[in-house]
């Protein structure tokens, strides 16, 4: 912990970036946070950034910039207890040592001791709304920490107006401190190599998401089995099980040979998979934002989405909506899409149009302007 700071211009205001999430698997939140940090570091040449993270990021060439220093920790951040200990105990000390004015926490938790220096993202309040979906220790830790952190924080960021309303309802946060902005998708999904017309797509239904209760896999499998009575299509499921979520069970049904579980795959493979699938199905019960449908839209794949929580806000008119509780509604929309090519093409073009709203450069500009206004009020 005795690294010397070597900023090109040491007089710029210092912003701490909480990189605890870097040690976890890169699912939705982690991917978006990673891209966020990258873009703000690139564009924010008028700030100095200090990225606090675990040891394995130390030599990552991606963080080598004039305005950023990486401070690593000797703890093994993959271990969950050490993880929380580092964030709550070590990080505030590092903040003081390196004299940072703000700490940006992109993944729900922040060090309580940094209190008014925290800018914290709250992605969703699932752990308060449907606690049974989470494992015991995760649920109670979040229930204890998140309200306290958000109450003290300088700013609370969230990713949809729906989540903002949830926060207003459930957390003791003053409305003046809440800001909402939309995430963007990784640039790789915009690449032209992955764009493929409807006629060249394979008969494949794609599902992307962690294997957890709120993603509503059982109803999808019910609908898939009924769908197979009339049409042929493979079902591909991308995503792993994560120990923070409660266990749940589902039966695959009689067509289980056509269902493949791919686990965690890198972005380029995922983009290719989107482009080869005829539809992305996203029947979640609750989402704070919903990144996979947007990625599908960027690639040019029609989306069937649940109408729950923030999804209609994010996807607007560019998706077909289903009731997640009702498997026959999922079945109807699948049948409709399979038989109507003009509908599919309409959805694809609407998707390309919709995705333009979500731009990483705009997001970074916005976040940097928030830093500037925070520093003025400090």
């Amino acid at each position: 912990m005795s690294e010397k700071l070597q900023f090109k211009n040491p007089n710029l205001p210092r912003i701490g970036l909480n990189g605890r999430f870097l040690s976890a698997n890169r699912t939705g939140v982690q991917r978006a946070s990673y891209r966020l940090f990258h873009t703000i570091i690139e564009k924010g040449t008028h700030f100095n950034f200090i990225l606090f993270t675990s040891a394995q990021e130390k030599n990552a060439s991606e963080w080598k910039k004039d305005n950023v220093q990486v401070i690593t920790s000797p703890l093994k951040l993959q271990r969950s207890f050490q993880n929380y200990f580092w964030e709550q105990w070590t990080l505030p000390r590092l903040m003081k040592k390196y004299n940072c004015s703000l700490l940006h926490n992109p993944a729900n938790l922040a060090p309580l001791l940094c209190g008014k220096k925290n800018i914290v993202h709250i992605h969703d309040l699932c752990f308060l709304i449907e606690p049974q979906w989470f494992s015991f220790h995760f649920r109670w830790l979040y229930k204890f920490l998140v309200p306290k952190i958000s109450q003290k924080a300088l700013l609370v960021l969230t990713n949809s107006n729906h989540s903002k309303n949830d926060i207003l309802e459930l957390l003791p946060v003053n409305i003046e401190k809440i800001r909402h902005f939309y995430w963007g998708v990784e640039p790789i999904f915009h690449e032209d190599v992955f764009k493929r017309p409807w006629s060249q797509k394979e008969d494949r239904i794609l599902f992307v998401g962690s294997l957890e209760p709120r993603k509503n896999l059982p109803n999808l499998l019910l609908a898939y089995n009924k769908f197979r009575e009339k049409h042929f299509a493979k079902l591909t499921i991308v995503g792993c099980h994560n120990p923070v979520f409660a266990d749940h069970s589902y039966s695959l049904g009689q067509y289980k040979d056509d269902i493949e579980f791919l686990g965690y795959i890198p972005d380029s493979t995922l983009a290719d998979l989107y482009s080869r699938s005829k539809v992305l199905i996203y029947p979640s019960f609750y989402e704070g934002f919903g990144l996979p449908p947007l990625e599908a839209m960027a690639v040019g794949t029609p989306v069937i989405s649940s109408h729950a929580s923030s999804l209609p806000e994010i996807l607007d008119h560019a998706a077909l909506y289903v009731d997640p509780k009702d498997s026959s509604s999922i079945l109807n929309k699948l049948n409709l899409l399979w038989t109507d090519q003009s509908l599919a093409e309409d959805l694809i073009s609407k998707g390309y149009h919709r995705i333009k709203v979500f731009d990483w450069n705009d997001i970074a500009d916005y976040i940097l302007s928030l830093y500037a206004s925070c520093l003025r009020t400090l």
Partner: protein
Amino acid sequence: MKVMLDARVVTQTAFHGIARYVQELVCHFTENPQDIEFYFIVHSKSPLIQSPVPSHIHYIYCDTPWMSLWSQWSLLKIIHRIKPDIFHAPSFMIPFLCPCPIICTLHDLNHIVLGEYYSLFHRIYYSLLFYRLRKRSMILTVSEFSKTQLKTYFPKQEIYVTPNGIGVEFSQCFSTNEINKFKKEYELPSKFLLTIGNKKPYKNIKNLIHAYCQGDFSLPLVLLSEFDEEYTHIAKKYGKKHKLYFLRPIPHSCLPLLYQSASVFIYPSLYEGFGLPPLEALISHTPVVSSPVPSLTEFLDPTLSKTGLFMIDPKDIQSISAGMISGIHFFENHNSSDSMTKECNMDYSWDITIKKTLDIYEKSIQLYSPKQPIL
């Protein structure tokens, strides 16, 4: 002549009509010196405080909360120290034992008319208030409607109407750039319906949300109002929670921008003494869907064509819904230049209010001050 005005109601975030009224009075009195000495009672962080302090203005700092028993005592102390000729209470807060004549502006009677929403403490307070106002005091109000209502409580007294005004800033046109910047800063959608209110039931926001959710409106609804769980619960039932946008408090200077960014302004209030917002929205060239509040029924020039203004029955959800549909239809098919507001000349300036108020100061001095000895 020494006039004392209690301006503590103005704070950084106060939006209601009363705060606006006081702010306008104080600003006008500060900028246009009269042969009156003004003593403004303000909070120490009040946005009204100007420096350097003009010679005819005195600020008296008093940080006791606006409606508290303690402020009875602290106001009384101030009055005994300064010995003003008149005490002007711009709202319902008066020192009961005030020795000098009181001029009190009663904006509405909602505490009496809608008594069921208020506590026993409020009711006792208002009966004391009315008792005091029957002696050595003059009553101002803001509309003929309120005057008629007040007349039943003060049959023997003259009640003067000093209507609220609309600042010139509302009629100015903003560039698309300015509007977009404002929308971005406050995270507003590109097109939206707007309403202003608070948690109090007579503002009728719940009925509006029912009407909004039952109709199939594609534009989101932005509320400049305190957050209330019930609002989002109603919307959640219809699956439209994501369409309610709660705006964080904006500075007063941004209000004209807010009105102009909105596609349609909706005001479903059940009771208003005046009702500034719909008139301001009209002046800002925004189509208005409103219940018949005094500002529209009394002060709008009746010879004007009523395009762009849609009256609704606020108790009837169907009527609110129909009004919103007409409002949106009007917005989509007209450009702002042919709305009625272009024809509006600025008859609504605060100057009239100020002039009438000054006249009343004079009158009260003549009425209540002890006769001056002739040489």
